[in-house]
């Protein structure tokens, strides 16, 4: 078996927040991400699911080395990139790209779309100027924007079109890993489906591996092979996508699933909502689990945070 294209080992991030009460009150540690381990096998899509404050976006940024982890390691294709200098990191940057939710603020308003998409080629010194432009136009065409869009500017586009441009720019270097942080959250229903299909197609064609960060379990169900659920900075459950939908074990995962609106009015049901405290108290007690809460395998490939009980 070859190394996974992306691996996170025991990644943690602690922010120091000023304590209330003035200058000399000191800091409190906020554990945004705690001991997160993930593997992204080649040519698969892994969903990283959670709500705001769960640490999923922080994990994405650390994966890209856009934020320094407090501890833990990041491996691309088996190579440890955690401690590389910016210069050493540059060849790996080609291998991993990121797309954000708000693509409008991520696109330079003063540049044409062709230049925006060609920019990574320029930065990495790949090809001559005409070749770069030609590749950028071909890439725009591939993501569903006619080559004539190359001369346009970001403000002329709709939200879905801008997201296509962001994807084109991310993929022009033919990376192995794409980190997609809520790329469909700001989009309309019909456009959302278009972008999901585009990601599925590109994954197939380019042999891409995607870390798909989202709060939307419905999107995750259609798009991903595996899911990792984050809560309070840690992964509480991970399994093949359909296993999560059919056999969720952790109370937080179950809560998330039951919060999905039904798509048939006759399925309306009263729900019970757990508070964060109730979730923490409801960590599954399983025979064979350790004395402190930790991920515990309940079936092959299905891990749930559990304690001995």
């Amino acid at each position, binding site marked *: 078996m070859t190394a996974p294209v992306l691996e996170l080992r025991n990644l943690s991030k602690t922010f120091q927040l000023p304590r209330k009460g003035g200058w000399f009150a000191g800091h409190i540690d906020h554990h945004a991400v705690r001991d997160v381990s993930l593997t992204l096998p080649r040519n698969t899509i892994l969903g990283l699911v959670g709500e705001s404050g769960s640490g999923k976006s922080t994990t994405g940024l650390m994966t890209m080395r856009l934020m320094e982890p407090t501890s833990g390691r990041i491996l691309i294709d088996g190579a440890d990139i955690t401690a590389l200098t910016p210069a050493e990191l540059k060849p790996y940057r080609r291998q991993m790209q990121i797309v954000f939710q708000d693509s409008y603020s991520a696109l330079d308003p003063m540049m044409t779309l062709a230049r925006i998409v060609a920019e990574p080629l320029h930065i990495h010194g790949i090809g001559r100027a005409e070749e770069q432009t030609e590749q950028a136009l071909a890439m725009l065409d591939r993501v569903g924007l006619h080559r004539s869009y190359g001369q346009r500017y970001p403000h002329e586009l709709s939200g879905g*079109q801008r997201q296509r441009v962001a994807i084109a720019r991310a993929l022009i270097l033919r990376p192995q890993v794409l980190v997609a942080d809520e790329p469909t959250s700001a989009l309309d*229903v*019909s456009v959302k489906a278009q972008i*999901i299909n585009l990601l599925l197609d590109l994954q197939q064609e380019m042999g891409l591996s995607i870390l798909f960060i989202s709060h939307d*379990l419905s999107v995750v*169900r259609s798009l991903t092979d595996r899911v990792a659920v984050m809560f309070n900075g840690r992964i509480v459950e991970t399994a093949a996508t359909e296993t999560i939908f059919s056999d969720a074990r952790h109370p937080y995962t179950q809560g998330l699933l039951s919060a999905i609106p039904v798509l*048939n009015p006759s399925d309306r049901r009263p729900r019970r*909502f757990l508070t964060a405290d109730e979730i923490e108290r409801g960590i599954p007690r399983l025979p064979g689990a350790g004395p402190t809460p930790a991920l515990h395998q309940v079936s092959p490939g299905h891990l749930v945070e559990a304690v001995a009980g």
Partner: protein
Amino acid sequence: MPLVDIQNLHVSFPQHEGLVQAVRGMSLTIEAGESVGIVGESGSGKSVTCMAALRLLRHPPSRITADRLSLDGVDMLTASRRDLARVRGKVASMVFQDPMSAFDPVFTIGHQIVETIRAHTDASLSAATDQAVALLDRVRIKTPLSILNSYPHQLSGGMLQRAMIAMALSCRPKILFADEPTTALDVTIQAQILALIKDLQAELGMGLVMVTHDLGVVAETVDRVVVMYGGRVMEEGPVQAIFDDPQHPYTRALLNSIPGRTPGKQRLTEIAGQSPNPANPPAGCPFHPRCTVALPDCATTAPATRQIGPGRTAACWGLT
């Protein structure tokens, strides 16, 4: 007399790309106690319809015309400022999308609820404060007094949305317009807020207009659905019928494009193309450029709204 009576509403406003025709001939009637969902994507005119119903659009620059636009018998087109203020908050209230920006940052939540109560009743300050506590309790806030004394920036989005609902309900309105009330919230909070709105609607027996882009929200909360696209109503009917047996091609396409309906990683049935440009909408049916079953007529003449079943209407040349 219907509670909400909107006939042939047109709303437009000048913007730099031209005259934006946000709503183009919208009709909607709602009886007391009814719950109706207005579904559509951005630019469909769903929010503008609500804003126009309460006359919350600045006019000018926006232009509003309608054969009829009345709330509880008050003609909102000709009402004086004072009459409008009497209807708003008392007859019809509104809950907005982003709770974080819906409160005045320099006053406490309590102040803002109390001033609403006192704008419509002659309750004393202490009586209004007691009512505010009861309202916060009613929206299942466990510590009403501390929330009352909090400033907006001190609270979470979910808590603020509960407070906004309490504020909207403070004068027992006959109808509540909820404009994407859960879009800015986390998934689990969204489910809680939807459950709350649904429960309160039943408890208070008020009408509800739920404006949303999310068909799931509609399936959860309302009895009747209005599907809008390009400033027009495409289809309208009881919620179960619309989900079981959508008739309009747009409704069908919208339902089919929802992710996660069936198990397994899979391509979705997408709607090709883009939403119409509201400054330059296509002639005929606004959906025809993206419609897979469009007829020649669709590109030239907008179809009229016709009865297609009990309580069901649609506007489509294909439905004859």
